[in-house]
């Protein structure tokens, strides 16, 4: 099924969720942008609503602090939730923005599948993980800084000296 903006809007209105915008991206399909405080309500509404987005396919972040014209230094960390509805065969993405070293509230009570990806997201982008049952680093150790931030160079000083 081709997902239309009106479908999503009606589901969100029925659950009385306020969102910043609902856009149709040329490549991604429907993208919902929300404030960090409204993420939980939006995800619950999409899961329980008429369209039945039952599975969270992926959660990940991106550092948009030097993203061309759209560079945003106030709230540079963009977190994306990718949801899928099997009944209606359609995907939707929910996006929110966080500042550097912001507080990320887990959505694990809505979608259990974020158990490991949220830990990875927070260690990779230096966010504080809250409300998570196991808020530890997943992949790197504490000596690592936040690898995926754009301010972290791909070659460390030592490696540059040794070349």
């Amino acid at each position, binding site marked *: 099924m081709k997902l239309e903006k009106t479908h999503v809007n009606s589901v969100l209105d029925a659950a009385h969720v306020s969102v910043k915008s609902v856009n149709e*991206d*040329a*490549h*991604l399909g429907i993208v919902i942008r929300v404030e960090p405080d409204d993420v939980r309500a939006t995800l619950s509404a999409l899961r329980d609503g008429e369209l039945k987005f*039952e*599975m*969270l*396919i*992926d959660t*990940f972040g*991106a*550092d948009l602090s030097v*993203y*061309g014209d759209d560079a945003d230094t106030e709230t540079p960390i963009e977190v*994306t939730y*990718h949801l899928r509805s*099997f009944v209606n*065969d359609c995907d939707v993405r929910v996006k929110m923005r966080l500042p550097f070293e912001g507080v990320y509230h887990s959505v694990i009570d809505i*979608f*259990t*599948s974020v*158990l*490991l*990806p949220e830990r*990875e997201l927070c260690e990779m982008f230096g966010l504080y993980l809250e*409300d*998570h*049952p*196991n*808020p*530890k*680093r*997943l*992949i*790197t*150790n*504490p000596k690592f800084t936040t*690898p*995926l931030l754009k301010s*972290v160079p*791909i070659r460390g000083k030592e490696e540059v000296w040794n070349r």
Partner: protein
Amino acid sequence: MESLDQDLKSFTLTQDQFVGYDNQGWLSLEEPEGIPVPRNLRRIADDPNKMSTEHFILNLGPCHPSTHGVLREVVELDGENIKSSEAHVGYLHRGIEKLCENSPWTHLAPYMDRADYAGGIYSETALAHAVEELGEIEVPDRAHWLRALMGEVNRMASHFLWLGPLGLDSGAMAPFLYMIWDRETLLEVLESVTGGRLMFNYVRPGGVLNDITPDAEAKLRKWLDIADDRMQEHWDVLMASELFQQRVKGIGVVSHEMAMSMGATGFVGRASGIDWDLRRDRPYGPYSQLDFNVATATEGDIWARIMVRYDEMLNSINIMRQLLDGMPEGPHMAKMPRVLRLPKGEAYGLVEGCRGEIGAHIYSDGGTTPYRVRYRPPIQYHLAIADTVLPGQMLADAIVSLASFDFCFGEVDR
């Protein structure tokens, strides 16, 4: 590396003073305050005094053969019964997503190989799909068919590397040796077409590296002639054994609700009743023109996963025959600019890989390199499921349970 200075006895022994040789403090005994901890994540049993035996914590891995890679599964035991388990990963982290940000769009395939090292063709294809979607690149038909053909060969090779060692973990030595012969034949086909046995660097944005050679096609057809008999032989050697069936039936059950809420895709989802295959439901390349079945089961135990995958292998053989017979003529590579620049934006490429949905979500800022590449690892989601189903099982069953999810840790850690 000061952590290596500690007494390494504590690693091989089983005491809970072990804090991990990478000094991550992962085994600290404190629980986070004020947060309800799910049972499978709880570090200490409610009351160790209530246990029927000594309170016992065992590190399965990171070098245990049953983990097929570098997984450290910390299990808490009461005798032989598992009370809690927690997976520790990260031993294979190479920063692939960060490295991708400094490479041109056309040079990313080798990194994708190293992410999913047992099914590299599919990782490459997922990224190529994303790049072609964003750049609106027209790919020749023959390239799509070659991608699908090499992908199916790789899928069979990867499944043999799963089914054989699964028998090994449940105590059957011989099937592994039978299956590795088939895998070797398929790897030779892959080698003669792509040049690599494991790291292919074959699928590029715009097409594929090489056309299939007559030698490789003859070799593949020769194997396809005997493939059905071979599969029957594998069935007789491993799965027809009642001893093996008793080891796997009713063990490691993933319920439909758990599979849905924990993001199970691929064979884990299909074995738990999620009737979903991207080759059929989001057809890409030649799959809309092919005739194949998608097997599902509802039990969700190890046996169901084996059945689903066995059927997938039989279908793969069928698909390979159709692909070889119906291969269209034409170029195998589109005309590509010398330096590929993608317009600003985001795109997502997906593919039904060996283990589930492999996705690549890319951000482009209009330059010659990616701004951000996210690789969607199906195994990371299955790992959380495995962690949840382990408590309640016996230790010997846990080994088979872990093996049945077909972990590939290059993908989880990246």
